[in-house]
């Protein structure tokens, strides 16, 4: 309908001016349409990415252009126990948090896939931790982890009498590390659950009916139908999750800033501390660049590791 009403005014102005004709010239139009997006990405993403790699090979500081110094920054990092510590914690943090997020998120998705009243309301509530600014919910966790007035300590000590002293969540290395991982899992569950729920809803019920006719138990239905059907979407969500957990910054910066005694530094917070707060741009950039191999490896591993099943099946069937 709208098309027919459109035709009459355009027919009357048969001879448009050169500007209109220029904008209707396809190659020109393509360039004009792509220019803003490509321009923004080139200036603020591609160029800085290259510049960052260049900076990693210089001794630049804030306010001074650096000299090319080869691999010196990286050689220094390899002897720096703090960098090794950050690598260690980044890997531990990503590993445990990803496992926790996916185990709990998958479970929540399966629960939400049932039929019960107020389902859409519940789905909306569940996403809240993901919507609210991370730093602000991290502050709430900081307050929950307070050494003196922690509500968890209060519950365990004064209400349940399971412990006699308050838990020192953020005062010593390992408890602090696990407290941060718990906060990260809390924030990551909703995203995983809602994305996986979308995947669950695309699985045809007839598959389950067929399996039930064949006498499959609920575990078998999960293992041989739900899980394989979810593999492609799991691979994508996990790739994203690993990338953004490994490079996480906000949560650690807000709650511990890398302390106590630098035990909870992730590579990103260490890069910030050295590069921006400490002014050693070259060294900070080197730390940031040192994340890239881990990211590439993790991406390839999660993507091909999980998607493998799919293409193997495809090969076998063809």
């Amino acid at each position: 309908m709208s098309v027919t009403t459109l035709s009459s005014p355009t027919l009357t102005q048969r001879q448009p001016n050169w500007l209109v004709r220029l904008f209707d010239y396809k190659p020109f139009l393509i360039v004009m349409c792509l220019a803003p997006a490509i321009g923004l990405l080139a200036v603020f993403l591609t160029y800085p990415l290259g510049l960052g790699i260049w900076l990693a090979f210089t001794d630049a500081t804030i306010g001074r252009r650096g000299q090319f110094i080869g691999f010196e920054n990286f050689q220094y990092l390899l002897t720096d126990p703090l960098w090794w510590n950050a690598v260690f914690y980044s890997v531990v943090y990503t590993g445990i948090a990803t496992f926790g997020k996916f185990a709990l998120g998958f479970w929540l998705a399966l629960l939400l896939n049932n039929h019960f009243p107020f389902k859409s309301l519940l789905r909306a509530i569940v996403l809240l931790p993901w919507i609210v600014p991370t730093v602000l919910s991290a502050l709430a966790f900081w307050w929950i982890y307070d050494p003196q007035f922690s509500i968890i300590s209060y519950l365990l000590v004064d209400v349940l009498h399971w412990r006699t002293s308050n838990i020192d969540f953020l005062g010593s290395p390992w408890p602090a590390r696990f407290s941060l991982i718990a906060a990260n899992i809390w924030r990551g569950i909703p995203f995983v659950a809602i994305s996986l729920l979308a995947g669950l809803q695309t699985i045809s019920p007839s598959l389950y009916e067929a399996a039930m006719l064949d006498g499959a138990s609920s575990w078998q239905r999960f293992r041989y139908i739900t899980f394989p059907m979810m593999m492609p979407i799991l691979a994508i969500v996990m790739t994203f999750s690993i990338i953004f957990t490994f490079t996480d910054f906000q949560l650690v910066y807000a709650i511990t800033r890398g302390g106590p005694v630098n035990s909870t530094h992730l590579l990103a917070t260490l890069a910030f501390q050295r590069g921006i707060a400490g002014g050693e741009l070259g060294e900070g950039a080197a730390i940031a660049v040192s994340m890239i191999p881990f990211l590439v490896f993790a991406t390839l591993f999660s993507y091909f590791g999980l998607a493998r099943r799919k293409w193997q099946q495809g090969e076998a069937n063809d």
Partner: protein
Amino acid sequence: MTDTVAQASVANAKAAPDTMAWDSGLRRLMMIYLPLGCFVLILLFPFYWMAITSFKPNAELLNYREHNPFWITSPTLVHIKHLLFDTAYPRWLWTTMLVAIGATTLSLVASTLAAYAIERLRFRGSPYVGLGIYLAYLVPPSILFIPLATVVVQFGLFDSPLALILVYPTFLVPFCTWLLIGYFKSIPYELEECALVDGATRLQILRRITLPLAVPGLISAGIFSFTLSWNEFIYALAFIQSGANKTVPVAILTELITGDVYQWGALMAGSLLGSLPVAIFYSLFVDYYVSSLTGAVKE
């Protein structure tokens, strides 16, 4: 539906008829409602704690012996008053809003045009341009912020909210473009062909046919961008120095925490107020959110 019916029929077959109703009811309670209740409790507790702390007077806040910490006996607005009148909080809110709206507008325009060119103007290599934009989404800000800081200084934009408006599209444009390509795909090509036959120019087609049909996609992309820009932290921390120009998440962390004694009431009130705009925005557009989140993953 069919799934539950089928499950019920299996339960029927297994259990004796008289115990079945009770058994499946209890089973449902233990297997579904109890875990769901735990999930909701844990996912919402930090917000409850945030909210209740912001209205507690200091005496109650730090005395668990005489006051039940889970409830307020004498609620007070003193923290919120302190925040609004003794700090630059309204200014921070305003800056954050400005940056979020600016970055959202810029990325929506850029990504609509890009998505239209990639999906509808179809040129040689358009899939590769789409792939390139998608790959840009996989570059995390943690890798970029140090070199970007030097770029921002070079452009003379250091300490200016404009820097944030220009930089945020780096993570918004890939996402929005991706989302909108999916939406444009769902619009029948024939509509545009009809308009072309009728002599409409391509820009007219975009404005009068494609865009009106893609409004749900535009809304999804818009609210997503708004939330992401509101929540952004690392760039705002690295590029803004003066107290007045900070965004809410950065300002709370760097300006409200003074000395060794934390003002938990004010901190939590600040977090609550800073979360409210996105929470309200979210509650108005829940369905768009869920569909864009899931649509983006499925694409």
